[in-house]
């Protein structure tokens, strides 16, 4: 499963990059396992498991229980705020 991933805001400080295209391993089946995968990949010591970081799949924020199918785009969204 190839996905385009965005690491927004302070998440990019954990990853050292703001986006990448990557083949996800088969162990990544839902949002929970996506969080686990990212956390160990970037040695983030649980930061990716923090519910304050929301996850959008194909432009829609989804709960941790959501299964991952037909993913084009993943985004990690830390707390937002503009203005």
């Amino acid at each position: 499963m190839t996905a385009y991933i965005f690491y927004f805001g302070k998440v990019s400080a954990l990853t050292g990059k703001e986006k990448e295209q990557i083949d996800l391993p088969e162990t990544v089946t839902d949002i929970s396992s996506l969080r686990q995968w990212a956390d160990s990949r970037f040695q983030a010591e649980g930061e990716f498991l923090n519910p304050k970081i929301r996850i959008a799949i194909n432009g829609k924020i989804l709960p941790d229980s959501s299964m991952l199918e037909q993913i084009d785009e993943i985004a990690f969204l830390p707390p937002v705020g503009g203005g």
Partner: protein
Amino acid sequence: MIDVSESKIDASAALKAFEADLNGAGAIVSFTGRVRETSKQERIETLRLQAYNPMTVDGIAQAVSRAKERWSLMDVHICHRIGHIAPGETIVFVATASAHRRDAFEAADYIMDYLKTQAIFWKQEITTCGRQTWIEPREQDYEDNARWD
């Protein structure tokens, strides 16, 4: 009208265009938010704003719809800048129009609270010394936003 772009915002020109389009509105409120010169005594070099479209614009459009249900509004206009923004430049411009002034005041206030705490933006402050900090809403911003629940 919702405009999220890297183009510079001219609040005065935006107000002029907004007022020109209005027929019969008695009350117009505008809000301009600008980048400050300093942060914790350090000079700001630039503020960087990220958005994630279409999510960002769709979210703002939904907030405008909620405002239009809640108050009697003739028009709403929002310009939000992204990319690198220099001190003194405008990050955000919001204008609201209504027959009576309370609607325009409260809707502008509501929309600003949405933009500050819920709109899909991330803000990074870069000081002249090179310190880079991602800025999250202040506790006060969340309290302000909770007024509308």
